[in-house]
């Protein structure tokens, strides 16, 4: 890991990985959508609305994955003072916020026909809403300082503090009686979901994950380029 704290080496790595991430993302999302919308059967109770699951469930997974990645990168940045880690955390935040919003929006669209309501204040929904606010707080704090490195470090502490929410989201359906159904894919005794639905779900999840890495790589490279341009401008004005 410390090898890639060097920005040049890290940039070289992500430039090499970016086309792969893009390819995997496009292929998996295309195949996943084909299986999800055409091949997989409609649910006997939920009929066609079950297809919302293929968008909703991976988005929720990614919302938590992105937050964990952001908090992990923040911790690495604070402990070893790797600036690259801060850049990764900063690039992750808006993507994670978008996934969280997508999970909440699709969940709401799914809730209306299934539960008869757009929104309920149960533990799962509330904790995911808090996650969205944590992302927004992170981005606001990160941009609120004139000194960017101070903003990055302050936001990193907030990301680590907010990480207590991630296990609460994960286990909220087990700890409290909620309307939201409990976990049915990641279980000790195997998934409680038929393979005809599991295949598109996993394909979509893989596509989402690759999409995250793809966009994150683009954002990290943009940030480094931005820093380089500013350095050049500064040199120009000094000369």
């Amino acid at each position, binding site marked *: 890991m410390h090898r890639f704290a060097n920005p040049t080496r890290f940039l070289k790595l992500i430039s090499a990985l970016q086309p792969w991430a893009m390819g995997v993302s496009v292929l998996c999302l295309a195949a996943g959508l084909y299986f999800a919308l055409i091949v997989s059967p409609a649910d006997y109770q939920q009929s066609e609305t079950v297809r919302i699951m293929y968008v909703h469930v991976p988005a929720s997974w990614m919302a938590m994955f992105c937050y964990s990645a952001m908090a992990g990168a923040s911790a690495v940045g*604070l402990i070893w003072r790797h600036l690259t880690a801060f850049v990764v955390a900063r690039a992750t935040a808006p993507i994670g916020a978008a996934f969280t919003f997508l999970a909440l929006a699709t969940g709401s669209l799914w809730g209306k026909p299934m539960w008869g309501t757009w929104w309920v204040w149960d533990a799962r929904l509330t904790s995911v809403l808090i996650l969205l606010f944590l992302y927004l707080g992170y981005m*606001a704090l990160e941009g609120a300082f004139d000194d960017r490195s101070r903003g990055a470090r302050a936001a990193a502490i907030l990301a680590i503090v907010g990480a207590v929410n991630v296990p609460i989201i994960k286990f909220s359906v087990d700890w409290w009686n909620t309307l939201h159904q409990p976990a049915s894919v990641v279980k000790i005794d195997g998934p409680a979901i038929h393979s005809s639905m599991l295949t598109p779900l996993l394909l979509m999840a893989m596509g989402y994950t690759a999409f995250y890495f793809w966009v994150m790589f683009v954002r990290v490279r943009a940030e480094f380029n931005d820093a380089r341009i500013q350095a050049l401008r500064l040199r120009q004005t000094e000369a």
Partner: protein
Amino acid sequence: MSPLFALIARDIRLAVRQGADSMMVIVFFVLVVVLFPLGIGPEPAILARVAAGVIWVAALLAAMLSMDRLYQSDHEDGSLELLVLSPLPLELQFLAKAAAHWLTTGLPLIIAAPLLGVFLNMRAEGFGVLLAALALGTPSLSLIGGVGAALSLGARRSGVLLSLLVLPLFIPVLIFGVSAVDASLTGLGAKAQLLILGGLLLGAAALTPWAGAAALRQAAE
């Protein structure tokens, strides 16, 4: 006097001598609560139903409003740098600051709460649990808010930013604080909720000093 208590005494003395600040928080608390009967109508049954929630939300807002002065003046006049340099661990100083904040705002809020309960026609059986829940919950607010205040030191528009950072983290305290009162009024007993509030307080007391001290060190750099 040990340096820890000296720091608490200093903060309390500052708060008392600039008494207007502390008073303003209480007046704000009372005013917010008074707005609700005017907003949702004076029907006693409805007010009694929402009383605990309204008092808790108002307490949350009042605690948050007083948060930014926790480190702001120390940051401006440079005493924060001296505090960071002092031999007393910064984590303990954070606890002392939070304790002083609770004594100057949390405690007055708790004292004012029963009066507001009467305003809102709350049933008398709920008062004891409301006070117990506030007593267990407001110190957590001071601790969590202290982290937010330390993080937003020196930021642009730090007041609005602070609310965005701190209010989502206040939500668990709010949920269990209100449900404690509701449970006792419906005869279920509030023991579980009070225990959770106590657990939140212990967790916050153990973990927030690390985050707060790290944030203060950065602010003083």
